[in-house]
């Protein structure tokens, strides 16, 4: 089945914007009568050589970051990538201003009133919805669920893997999402017997008109999972522009690239979509390779995140008084399944103690763990966390190196001072 490439349409609409701009310049009255030709020449020169940032139809990074917490660290300006360190994750629900940003292209400025979601491919009836129609047509669901970039933690790999240098604990969050179930929408369209994958396509575009559209497909079983949503809300407010306004997929527990932002087309396919964001990126070797090697041809697509945890309190280098308890807190999660236990070590992994875990909430929400630690001696003290899921998988000290630096789930370690 085909996925239409809409980049030519995108470039056409941007072309119109630039031409309008030039026309406005050319017709702007007395001043223009004197310098019109020069202004038009200048505008045409700009058209030929666009500024290296913020093309028409996009939201400038400065505007995106103005709505974010000062705790957000920008890891890459183009494309925009930002996150907070672990100690800024000490919230039950990730606040919107601390939710990580990972764009592949630019942040599009989409008019929600004109936005349409098309459902096509191997369906009995092709459908199209406005955002309001979608909200009314199906039951609305709000749930808390993990979102994490496949490369989250990449900078912990040695040698450093290629790609966005996420902090060892960067690139994840667990806000609430509001939307409709993807399976309800697919059921309304009716699936053909050979339906096997569902591809999401977003309305983001690059600084060059040749930029490939961001398309990724997920297997039908995950598409039909009741927690997989087409969302318009985050933390009970409309999605911010950088997080996919007005519509995005939420494929909880899976690598973030599956959760297409600025979603405008869903295509039902009989096989995984073939394209650069499926085949060249977001893959890991089937069997571990030597650090520094290229991605082998038999690499597999990244899907659910392996079991992982982070310490959100104390902050690195915090200081405490001897004789008082130190509250250790953190978060643990796994892409599919449930957290069974979280263990902590205060002696570099020689012995471990069990942390308390909160009662589970929604299926794909992170779990909060805590432990009251009574230091017996003063000095620099480290705490390490490791989680185990209900399938018997425990976080490794260091996960296998892979060329694109995905799925870092090594032990998180925080040091603090105990003062006499």
């Amino acid at each position, binding site marked *: *089945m085909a996925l239409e490439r809409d980049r030519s349409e995108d470039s056409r609409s941007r072309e119109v914007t630039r031409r309008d701009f030039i026309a406005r310049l050319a017709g702007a009255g007395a001043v223009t009568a004197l310098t019109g030709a020069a202004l038009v020449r200048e505008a045409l020169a700009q058209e030929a050589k666009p500024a290296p940032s913020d093309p028409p139809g996009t939201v400038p990074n400065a505007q995106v970051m103005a709505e974010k917490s000062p705790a957000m660290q920008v890891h890459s300006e183009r494309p925009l990538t930002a996150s907070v360190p672990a100690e800024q994750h000490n919230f039950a629900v990730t606040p919107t201003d601390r939710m990580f940003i990972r764009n592949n292209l630019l942040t599009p400025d989409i008019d929600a009133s004109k936005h349409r979601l098309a459902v096509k491919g191997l369906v009995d009836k092709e459908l199209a919805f406005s955002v309001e129609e979608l909200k009314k047509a199906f039951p609305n669901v709000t749930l808390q669920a993990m979102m994490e970039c496949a490369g989250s933690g990449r900078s912990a790999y040695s040698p450093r893997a290629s790609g966005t240098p996420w902090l060892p604990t960067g690139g994840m969050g667990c806000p609430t999402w509001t939307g409709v179930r993807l399976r309800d929408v697919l059921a309304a369209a009716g699936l053909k017997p050979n339906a096997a994958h569902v591809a999401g396509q977003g309305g983001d575009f690059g600084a060059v008109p040749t930029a490939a559209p961001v398309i990724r497909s997920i297997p039908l079983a995950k598409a039909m999972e009741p927690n997989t949503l087409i969302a318009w809300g985050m933390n009970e407010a409309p999605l911010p522009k950088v997080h996919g306004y007005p519509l995005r997929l939420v494929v909880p527990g899976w690598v973030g690239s599956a959760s297409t932002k600025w979603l405008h087309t869903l295509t039902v396919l009989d096989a995984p979509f073939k394209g650069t964001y499926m085949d060249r990126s977001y893959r890991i070797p089937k069997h571990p390779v030597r650090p520094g090697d290229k991605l082998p041809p038999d690499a597999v697509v990244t899907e659910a995140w392996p079991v992982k945890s982070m310490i959100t309190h104390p902050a690195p280098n915090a200081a405490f008084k001897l004789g008082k308890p130190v509250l250790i807190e953190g978060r643990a999660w796994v892409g599919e399944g449930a957290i069974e236990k979280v263990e902590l070590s205060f002696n570099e992994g020689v012995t471990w103690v069990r942390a308390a875990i*909160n009662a589970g909430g929604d299926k794909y929400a992170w779990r909060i763990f805590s432990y009251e630690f009574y230091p017996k001696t003063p000095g620099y003290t480290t705490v390490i966390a490791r989680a185990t899921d209900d399938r018997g998988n425990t976080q490794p000290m260091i996960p296998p190196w892979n060329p694109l630096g995905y799925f870092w789930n090594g032990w998180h370690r925080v040091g603090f001072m105990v003062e006499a």
Partner: protein
Amino acid sequence: MSCFRKALQAGVAAAAALATAAGIVMAPSSAQEPEPARTLIPGKGSDLTTARCATCHDAQHITRARLSRGEWEYNIQNMIERGAPIAPHEVPVILDYLATYYNRDSAPPAPDPSAAGYGLDAGAGADPAARLITTHACVACHQLDRRLVGPSFREVAARFSGDGAAAEKLAKKIREGGAGNWGNVPMPPHPQLSEADLGQMVGWILRQK
């Protein structure tokens, strides 16, 4: 939001307040790595590398990286598939530059501003058709000698080999799209291409036998 979550949030906030009351002192976090340079080291091919990469990326994507030659090669191919306007003859220039100045296994040589312009106009006049293939984003789905979303240019040229009407048939296929003869993704139509560009591109593809 559920009552459970509100209670949980309140609990966490209370715990944080207690912790503060218990006399926690915040120390500055450990020192960050120095910020990577915002421009490339001048050297053979650095201007071309900047011209082709900087449209979509800040230079720090390169200056903070130290990769093996193989990894740089993979990265360049990846970016071409994502639509980077890099012509086939420019690939070795950019690869040599990156693998020389940003290599994991060897220290960079001294900067060489006199060679920075190398490769900027290489081949631009030699084969304008090759550049059209890049500007029109054919390379997002087709490569010279490797099957990607669609067939390689060599495969296409081989299929039409000896066909007197090859140019006409291929032009029609590009303009109107195709039915997925090579895989499960049909060729989308490209009605926006001018006759002149299309003619040159078809000629170039059919020469890649």
